[in-house]
């Protein structure tokens, strides 16, 4: 083994006990607010989606909202922050979208990511391990974030979710 190879292999592989799933918390709601609208005051503007809203959003974006409660905040300068969730094939993802005053996407941040497989989702014991780790939980990223290398995960569900929120903005929030 050459010296250069050795230096890259200062990393002796170790066998791990397989974790049940990949789970990561990147940002709390408060952190997303501060990051995406620095220095701006955000006013909660939560509102329920009516049956007509849901039908119009589905028609415009091709995706149905998961929740009937729209979690939106209005910034003092007319922008919007929306926090929402998508469910992919194997994962729950909470994400935040910042829109400017014209309704254009300014930024998208993943807030948390929970990968799950089949029955685990319905198993209360499995779900309980995440209890209390959502809103307001301190970031414990050394523990929470696992760097993973493997087959590339698709972010398609999040992109679909952003499209759905743009439709939601046009139908429910704009004007």
């Amino acid at each position: 083994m050459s010296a250069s190879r050795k230096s890259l292999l200062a990393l002796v592989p170790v066998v791990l006990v397989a974790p049940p799933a990949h789970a990561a918390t990147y940002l709390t709601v408060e952190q997303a607010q501060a990051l995406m609208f620095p220095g701006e005051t955000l006013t909660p503007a939560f509102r329920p989606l009516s049956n007509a809203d849901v039908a119009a959003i589905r028609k415009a974006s091709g995706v149905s909202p998961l929740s009937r409660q729209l979690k939106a905040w209005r910034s003092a300068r007319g922008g919007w922050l929306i926090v929402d969730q998508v469910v992919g094939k194997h994962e729950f993802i909470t994400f935040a979208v910042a829109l400017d005053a014209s309704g254009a996407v300014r930024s998208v941040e993943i807030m948390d990511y929970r990968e799950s497989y089949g029955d685990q989702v319905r198993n209360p014991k499995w779900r309980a391990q995440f209890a209390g780790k959502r809103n307001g939980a301190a970031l414990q990223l050394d523990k929470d974030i696992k760097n993973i290398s493997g087959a590339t995960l698709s972010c398609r569900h999040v992109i679909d979710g952003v499209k759905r929120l743009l439709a939601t903005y046009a139908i429910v929030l704009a004007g």
Partner: protein
Amino acid sequence: MLSSLPDKLVTRCQPWLGTFVEISVAQADMGAVEPAFRAIAHIHACMSFHSADSDLARLRSVRPGETVAVDEETVLVLRMAIALHDATEGLFDVAVGRALVRSRFLPREGITHLSRYTGTTADIEIIDDRHVRCKKRLLIDLGGIAKGHAVDRAVAALQAGGVRAGLVNAGGDLRAFGMRDWQVQLRDADDVVRHGLALRDCAMASSANLHDRRRVQGVQLSPHIGRDGAPSLVDHRVTVLAERCVIADAMTKVAMVDADLADRILATHNGYVLRPSMTREAA
């Protein structure tokens, strides 16, 4: 030198390049993360196969032989693609777009007469740092190399911002820099994590397609194309280490088909294919 970096790590995650991009730095360096994401967003905009105003969309819309003005980043990636196409005698080919559209791993939107796109990477001609022309029609897809390049660019942006240690992970193509060990878990092709390792100051990329296949007219297809256009059907994870992520990313596709060839090329980039025997040594 972990003790010299007592600061807590933070990680942000944004969707780019079709996957989730994580950037981890010490909390004190959070301000440098935004420019790093911007570097990735720029590469996404230039090299997206899907977007109608990317460099790739413009390259496929012109007549053969017509010069196209593109971003410098696109030229850098195409130069690397041409060098790797040469070094692998055509195995690494960014003209996989046609095969991937045909097998529906990429959208067909706006592309008519698929059979006209007969060119290979060898038909790409770099004129200068901002201009390219293609001698034949070809459908370029940079899905096998752009993520790695984006990771390298994000690392450069973090370093330019004064960050001493960090990790950028674009859906499994990752690079660590600085005097710090980073624990990385390897997700096998069956989605189970069995091994992990500590990385320091190097790049790693993995590929697998066991759970990403399609059956078209009875034939199994994957998003990875091997020799003579045949799909690479590899049931295990392939992991490559190298100094730069662009090399690691590209070489996973070569290693899927010919690990020895990948190792010979990687030897000139201070890298290698992570073989199962290396992980067993430690078990």
